[in-house]
């Protein structure tokens, strides 16, 4: 069966520090991968999605970037975090087309 791993579960970072969040999927090949951000009590904001290695589409311009160095690995990065980057970051995968998305447990990021 397919599983998705996302870490760390929580992270506290100072303003201006770098960020690297990693997500890996097991049990499937060539998944579509997604990064979302969710502010407290709010909906899901799609940040990036990828349909293949090295292919990244950005939905919202900001100081975050994403990379997909391997088929089942998706990384969210920032060189310098802002206070507004705080939130709940969720990675998800799908089989593509109309197939549903399956989410990781998420990372709660607090910026001090």
């Amino acid at each position, binding site marked *: 069966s397919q599983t998705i791993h996302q870490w760390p579960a929580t992270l506290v970072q100072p303003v201006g520090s770098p960020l690297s969040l990693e997500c890996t999927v097991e049990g499937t090949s060539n998944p579509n991968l997604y990064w979302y951000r969710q502010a407290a*009590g*709010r*909906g*899901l904001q*799609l940040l990036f*999605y990828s349909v293949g290695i090295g292919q990244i589409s950005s939905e919202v311009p900001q100081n975050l970037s994403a990379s997909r160095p391997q088929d089942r690995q998706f990384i969210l990065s920032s060189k310098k975090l802002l206070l507004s980057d705080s939130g709940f970051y*969720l990675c998800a995968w799908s089989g*593509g*087309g*109309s197939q*549903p*998305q*399956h*989410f*990781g*447990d*998420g990372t709660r990021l607090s910026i001090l």
Partner: protein
Amino acid sequence: GQQVMQIPQYQHVQEGEDFTTYCNSSTTLSNIQWYKQRPGGHPVFLIQLVKSGEVKKQKRLTFQFGEAKKNSSLHITATQTTDVGTYFCAGLGGNYQLIWGAGTKLIIKP
């Protein structure tokens, strides 16, 4: 761009009362998916509706997709404490990207 409006934002109910959330799209959707997010958790896929006018049931949950494939609803009969959470609809647009509603938070009154 394509949008999916979901209402209400919150619904407070007594345990045992019914709950309904509605989604409306500005354009025709290929399908609509429903997800549940428990407090502190991540969204979990519940169901997908594809056909015009489709109705699906999962125990006390009834999902409907409108005839024009622009609206959908989720109705929970006789809510229980285990139903607490936020329910999201997500419509599949023309580019195979999900367009998410803002979610409806189900709160059970103490």
